């Protein structure tokens, strides 16, 4: 899956290169960052290109941190991110580029907790998830949740460059007793792609993992999440993400540096148009408006 997604942008670059030779502006907008948003970004690149006055767009993934690092280095025009930019990244952009970073909200994403279809559990609370995933958490074995189950949790997550990793840790592990943020426990399989997480869970009966709502396949089951112990659990849904009822929803952003150039401003406006937002919705996310 990761490979396929790596190839699409390459094809787009080639396509963009061909177009540039035919006399349309030869500058290319490069968009890079969140793997969560890579399908959206390549979708945008595909649909945006080809009309007069529009520059070719070259979209790729790698992780939110990778996109923002590119923004700091000046190798990327627009960074996609599934988390808010960190203060020190914001400072680094100002230091290296001399201009402040600008944030553009483009939609939201609901993370879902996935398990193997054979798993009898249907719902968990946020605090249970916290005990499962955090360093020093009290839940380590499925039998602690369901007497009919046996075996330790096999935790599947994303690698630490991914915005999903950050977001999930912030919401699920949260602050510990000392008020500081808790870290993930050791031994989580950290995978490089959202679909890879789903694939792995589909093949492991004891697995528990997180990935974007849009990546669900029939081979895995997602869990309803209760925001508090005892409160009703909510299944992931676009509506729940927009309304804030579903507890694992997050906002998605594009970041640019300083005043956008006419080319990138045109693109950003298009992204928030009906056409651009439809692509956000098509990938399983909740549009910004």
């Amino acid at each position: 899956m990761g490979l396929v997604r790596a190839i699409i942008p390459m094809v787009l670059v080639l396509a963009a290169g061909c177009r540039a030779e035919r006399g349309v502006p030869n500058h290319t907008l490069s968009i890079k960052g969140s793997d969560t948003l890579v399908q959206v970004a390549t979708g945008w690149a595909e649909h945006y290109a080809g009309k007069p006055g529009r520059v070719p767009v070259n979209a790729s993934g790698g992780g939110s941190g990778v996109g923002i690092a590119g923004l700091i280095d000046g190798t990327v025009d627009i960074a996609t991110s599934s988390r808010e930019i960190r203060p020190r990244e914001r400072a680094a952009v100002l230091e290296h580029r001399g201009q402040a970073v600008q944030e553009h909200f483009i939609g939201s994403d609901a993370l879902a907790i996935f398990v193997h279809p054979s798993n009898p559990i249907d719902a968990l609370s946020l605090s249970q998830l916290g005990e499962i995933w955090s360093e020093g958490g009290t839940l380590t074995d499925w039998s602690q949740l369901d007497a009919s189950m046996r075996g330790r949790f096999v935790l599947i997550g994303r690698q630490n460059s991914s915005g999903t990793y950050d977001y999930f840790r912030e919401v699920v592990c949260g602050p510990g007793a000392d008020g500081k943020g808790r870290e993930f426990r050791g031994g989580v399989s950290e995978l490089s792609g959202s679909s890879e997480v789903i694939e792995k869970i589909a093949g492991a009966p004891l697995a528990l993992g997180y990935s974007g709502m849009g990546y669900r396949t029939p081979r895995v089951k997602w869990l309803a999440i209760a925001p508090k112990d005892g409160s009703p659990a909510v299944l992931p849904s676009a509506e729940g993400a927009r309304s804030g009822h579903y507890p694992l929803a997050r906002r998605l952003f594009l970041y640019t540096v300083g005043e956008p150039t006419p080319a990138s401003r045109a693109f950003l406006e298009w992204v928030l148009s009906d056409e651009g937002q439809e692509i956000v919705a098509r990938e399983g996310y909740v549009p910004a408006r």
Partner: protein
Amino acid sequence: MMPASARAGVTRGQTRSGRATSLRSPRAKSRGLRLGERLIEGFIVLCGWSSILCMAAIFLFLVREAAPVLTHLDWHEFFTSTRWIPAPAKGNPAHYGALALMVGTLTTTLVAMVVAVPSGLAAAVYLSEFATRRVRETFKVIIELLAAVPSVVWGFLGLMVVGPVVSELTGAPLGTNLLTGGLVLGLMSAPVIVSISEDALRAVPDSYREAALALGASKWDLVKRVLFPAARNGLLAACLLGLGRAVGETMAVLLATGHANQVPHSLVDPVRTLTAAIAAELGEAPRGSEHYRALFLLGVVLLVFTFIINVTADLVIKGIRRKGEST
């Protein structure tokens, strides 16, 4: 290069243009030859030194990139803690405990060697001593082809084929784990080991075999008592090259080990290696950041590992040689 060949051409031209062979100037020719020879010699010396220069340059580069972190790194944590948290939660300091990564590299390599060395040496013995010429030639071609299979393909194989089989047979909850990674690495190093050990065994003069057989040695005695001792340097070199491939391999372990930062408690726990950590994180670490430096430090550690392995093996070979000479 140019002037040398040009001058050589002139000399030849003069010789051809009428002078009797006995009268041609030996000094002119030898001067031309000498210069050409010197250039070639210089080139060869340069080639020889270039490996050392490259090695030094790589080491300096790694150390230079890692240097700023060397002074304020918590070394105790680096070597004894398994908390590798380069991108910590809000308000927390980053942690660079690389113990689990080092253990990951060492254990996967160990599994790989347990698989690859016996099977590789056995295959080499079969090819060099038992197989017919035709079988040997065919097998060698295939084995060399196997050694050239790209590592990402091995990784896929680990993920899609070896993983499911391992989890089926061992009941491992996850197909991608230490055993799967080690098996894939073993499969990758085995062709290297077979190919080079077979060459080493074939290089043992036939007179050794004849002498042993004439003394009534069985085939097994021949292999164990004559061929292995005679070819030990080559066999050790073969195993070292295989080991080197396993230690440094990145793509295959990234796909097949499960990429989980922990000290494994069993053979089927997922692990994470130094190489995988570098490959997965370097793209995201901003240039010059502490995280970036720490990843280069992992590179230094990896280099030191291979260095230690090579020096040890060198000493072992020297030890064997000395022992061989004294007896």
